């Protein structure tokens, strides 16, 4: 009897392994496809049948960062020989790098959008996690009248659909000149992430035994000293995990950025899709931009893997 069950179990398990592998391949195929398109020569990006095996190229990334125009006439051999390696790659693709009157290479719109994304995401993360940590400690350690209602209030601000909040914010920002500025987005993202950071950090704070601080208080520490010297170091992992979640949310955000920015402070999510034109768009360059943009999040996902469950459920489910 027992032997039969185990062999049945074993074959079931083998089936499950095959199933998981198939599902993993299907789930990763879209990501693989966009990543591989970022390294394709332009003429292989949209072939029928799709090109799977090819000689990887770096030229989409060169094109991503530079402003280019169509070559009317082929470059002379001298021009070609004088050009640096990356400019030759652009020549090979039938385009030339646009230079200013003084011969400086003109950048495309991508690097500044990427920088804007970094500035906005990092600043709003620091603010949201900073304030969130203090508030979470307050909720975790002190008696607060109507604590549940306050926590519900904090959570509900996060649940508002971005477009609903964006309409009045747009009008208010227009009145005070915050439209299309970094600070405009930073404030919105901080508000958005703050509620998340309070909820998540409260979970982490609840797990730190309050006897630690009590011992410190008895030893003559003030409450503040105990908070900074005992609680914060204990909460370091939680703070780091919360920060990464906030960063990813701000980094990925689209609707606010679409509505509130158009050029100077525009972040990458509204910019990258705007590069897709009709038919003529160079998918290798779009894929390169997408690849660079997704890379930090992919790395963070691996770093966060043990906290994903808690983070994605607002700290509701812990393990």
């Amino acid at each position, binding site marked *: 009897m027992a032997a039969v069950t185990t062999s049945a179990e074993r074959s079931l398990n083998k089936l499950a392994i095959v199933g998981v592998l198939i599902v993993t391949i299907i789930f990763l195929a*879209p*990501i693989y496809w966009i990543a591989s398109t970022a390294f394709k020569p332009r003429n292989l990006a949209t072939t029928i049948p799709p090109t799977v095996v090819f000689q990887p190229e770096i030229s989409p990334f060169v094109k991503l960062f530079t402003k280019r125009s169509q070559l009317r006439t082929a470059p002379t051999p001298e021009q070609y020989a004088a050009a640096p390696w990356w400019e030759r790659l652009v020549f090979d693709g039938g385009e030339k790098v646009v230079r200013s009157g003084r011969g400086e290479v003109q950048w495309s719109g991508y690097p500044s959008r990427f920088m804007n994304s970094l500035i906005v995401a990092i600043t709003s993360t620091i603010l949201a996690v900073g304030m969130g940590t203090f508030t979470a400690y*307050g909720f975790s350690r002190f008696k607060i009248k109507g604590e549940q209602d306050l926590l519900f209030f904090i959570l509900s601000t996060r649940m508002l659909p971005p477009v609903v909040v964006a309409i009045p914010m747009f009008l208010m920002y227009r009145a005070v000149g915050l439209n299309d500025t970094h600070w405009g987005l930073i404030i919105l993202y901080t*508000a958005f992430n703050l509620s998340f950071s309070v909820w998540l950090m409260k979970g982490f704070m609840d797990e730190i035994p309050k006897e630690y601080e009590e011992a410190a208080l008895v030893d*003559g520490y003030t409450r503040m000293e105990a908070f900074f010297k005992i609680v914060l170091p204990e909460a370091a992992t939680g703070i780091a995990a919360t920060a990464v979640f906030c960063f990813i949310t701000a980094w990925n955000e689209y*609707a606010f950025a679409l509505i509130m920015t158009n050029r100077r402070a525009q972040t990458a999510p509204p910019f990258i899709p705007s590069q897709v034109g009709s038919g003529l768009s160079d998918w290798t360059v779009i894929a390169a931009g997408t690849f660079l943009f997704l890379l930090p999040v992919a790395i963070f996902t691996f770093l966060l893997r043990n906290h994903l469950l808690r983070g994605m459920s607002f700290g509701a489910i812990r393990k």
Partner: protein
Amino acid sequence: MATAVMTTLDPKSRSAARGMSDLTIRNLFIIPTIVFLIVFNIFPLLYSLGYSFTDFRASSAAPATFVGLQNYRELLNDPFIWSNFAITAKYVIVSVVGQVIVGFGVALLLNRDIPLKGLLTTLLLLPMMLSMAVVGLFWKLLYDPSFGIINYTLGLGSFEWLSNPDMALYAVAITDIWMWSPFVMLLSLAGLSAVPKHLYEAAAIDRAGSFYTFFRITLPLVAPILMIAIIFRTMEAFKTFDLAYILTSQPTTEVISIRLYKMAFQEWQTGRSCALAYIVLIMILAITNIYVKYLNKVKER
């Protein structure tokens, strides 16, 4: 939820004399956050509540005129708005049901003795961490009727996904299912691994069939966590904007957020859009309320 008792300091103790009182610290830690959220979330909503009773247009210099409940009355009697809600409801149902089936299914597979389980789980979780806007963009490449790999792999020839009014909403939902099934999977896995092993052993001794074991042991015990996943995804799918907006511009995919966006920022009917925003807001708050009640119930166990 654990209620932490405030540690009271002996007022004559050294630390009490040197430092701030706990009450001050509590206020210092909590009030700024509450104020920040009120200023940047609640105040704007009050501001738009005011505009929702006017015919204000942000694109014109004309001052707002008070029109009372006219915006609300017109919106609630507008069949086009109701069709936007119907599209949203269809989208929510298709994508959440899809996510539960795929996500829970994969969780059941992963809940066995799988080599490299940790790595595979992390890889499977990748889609939900990505930017919806950018995901929408590259699924456009995948869905392309002439050179997209989806048509090629499935042998569909030049099947139109996104420019076909009957298919576009499903195409958006499929992308959403790809992105968010991992979320349901993640929560289901947590639920599944919490089911006590001895229950299965007892069922095996009683020679219970796998069908019976699944419906009488696994499902009831995972249900609370699965329910959290479902409510959470319902809320998010109801708010969906990025994916549908980027993937297609078919009228059949105009979910309520897109209608709201167009009304506010393309047609510049600011007053009317504020009223619609309030209608949406009330629906969202209702779902959030259910969600939080449920969370607290699950947490208490």
